[in-house]
């Protein structure tokens, strides 16, 4: 018996596509949010921080439920996407990407925010007195100095997206090749009493998670430091 069949491989491939897309999207969306949280003195800071952190404490089904309503035919996002001719997002790869982005947001925003806060205002001021515009400063000073934070953010965002289940089930359902990711596939295998197949996938996830975290803590000096201090 082959240890993984075509369906399993489709789920693996889909999961990697989803996690990669979401990670890239999270870095693009999460970095400005992290920057704003690190620098703002606005009273909205607390509210935005809380909203970003919500997925850490909410059951994924709750997040999935509301996103489903928002993106559904009668929800505001659903009406917008229909008006734009995109159609409806639930039960599509696009919907999964959006839901996962919300769900994994804190895992990207918080490390990047911490890294930016650790840099402090001084290097930015130094760059300004050396003729670097804020945009220039971001790429030549902030990104290199915050590299460990970005690395942590990317790894955690990727790994967390790979591991999600509840949100996927609510938003994506269980469509082979479109929304059926590894975690859902494992669930299906267990439901069908195909424990051997479930083991291959589940064991693979354990190995993957361990490897990712091992890399994070051994390669990334910042994670090592914060672990040592915290």
């Amino acid at each position, binding site marked *: 018996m082959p240890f993984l069949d075509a369906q399993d491989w489709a789920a693996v491939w889909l999961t990697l596509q989803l996690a990669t897309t979401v990670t890239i999207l999270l870095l693009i969306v999460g970095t400005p949010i992290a920057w704003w949280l690190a620098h703002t003195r606005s009273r909205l800071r607390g509210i935005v921080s809380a909203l970003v952190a919500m997925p850490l404490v909410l059951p994924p089904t709750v997040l999935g439920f509301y996103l489903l309503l928002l993106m559904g035919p009668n929800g505001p996002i659903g009406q917008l996407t229909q008006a734009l001719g995109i159609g409806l997002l639930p039960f599509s790869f696009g919907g999964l990407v959006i839901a996962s982005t919300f769900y994994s947001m804190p895992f990207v925003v918080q490390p990047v925010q911490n890294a930016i806060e650790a840099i402090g205002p*001084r*290097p930015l*001021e*130094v760059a*300004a*007195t050396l*003729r*670097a515009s804020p945009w*220039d400063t971001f790429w030549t000073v902030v990104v290199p*100095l915050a590299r460990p934070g970005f690395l942590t953010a990317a790894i955690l965002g990727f790994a967390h997206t790979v591991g999600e289940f509840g949100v996927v089930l609510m938003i994506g359902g269980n469509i082979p090749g479109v929304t059926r990711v590894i975690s859902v596939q494992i669930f299906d295998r267990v439901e069908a009493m195909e424990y051997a197949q479930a083991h291959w996938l589940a064991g693979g996830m354990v190995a993957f998670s361990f490897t990712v975290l091992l890399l994070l803590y051994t390669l990334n000096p910042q994670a090592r430091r914060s672990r040592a201090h915290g």
Partner: protein
Amino acid sequence: MDKDAAIILRARHAYPGFSFDVDLALPGKGVTVLFGHSGSGKTTALRCVAGLERASQAFLSINGEVWQDDAAGRFIPPWQRPIGYVFQEASLFAHLDVRRNLVYGMRRTAGGVDAAEVDRIVALLGIGHLLDRAPDRLSGGERQRVAIARALLTRPRLLLMDEPLSALDTARKQEILPYLERLHDALEIPLLYVTHQIEEAARLADHLVLLEQGKVLASAPLSEALARLDLPLAREHEAGVVISAEVASHEAEWHLTHLRFAGGNISVSHRPLEVGRAVRVRILARDVSIALSGDHASSIQNRFACTVTSIAPADDPAQCLVGLDAAGTRLFARVTRRAVSQLDLAPARWVWAQVKAVALLE
């Protein structure tokens, strides 16, 4: 002074627990020291000039070029101002080695900097052997020298330094001060220098601005500002004046160097300086005593005729500060009130100032 004023800063801003309100017209060349204790607003003033701090109502012009004018809605952001800024603590980019730190600002400077100029500045600050090092492998003094070179390499039209020595221990300070003095001679651009150390002010300043609680108490040439008895500076333990003098001669037999200034001569221990060289001499008020006649045999040989200009109370109720004028050179003495009474000192009276110790600042 206003007609020479090249740096005009008028700024007002209410910070929590501190209102900043200055109106300064500063010379367009030489070193201007902004002096004051912490919370005096000296760093705020410097940051306003750099554009790092934005006072709500401000006007700032440098050599006729307006950098900020809130009445006209004009504010040039810091990265578009031709300044060089040296921060209080080490501010080198940790992710770049010394060479890349130096190049960072240079590469962003319009017109670039030619190689000969780079060599000159690297040599001026003595950092040629450090170029391939990472910042965390430099001493505190070396880091500040690199930071100064990095600022100079942007070809600034105005150099700003915020307590560049305060994070260093005494030995490191003595290591950097000569470089700063060399800069003072080599620079053609104005330097605004913030410090709360009177010794740094005495060694470097041409012009002194005294700040207290966000207000300007005085803005005057160094020797004038230091000789004013109405300023809190005169009440400091290290209070004293700085006199410009030149090397007049050397006397090998007694191992002495004689200095000449407008009010007379001063002798100091021999220093290998060429005759005619301009030097600064610092005379602390507590090292000056007053005698009514000059013919007393005394171990104190540095003495010159002065008139008393004013008498002011010192912080200690037993003491007074006596302002003196030696042919135009101002100095002052810290003496007891009893001595003032017994010698019957009063303005316009001729006396002899006897100087127990002088510090020669090259």
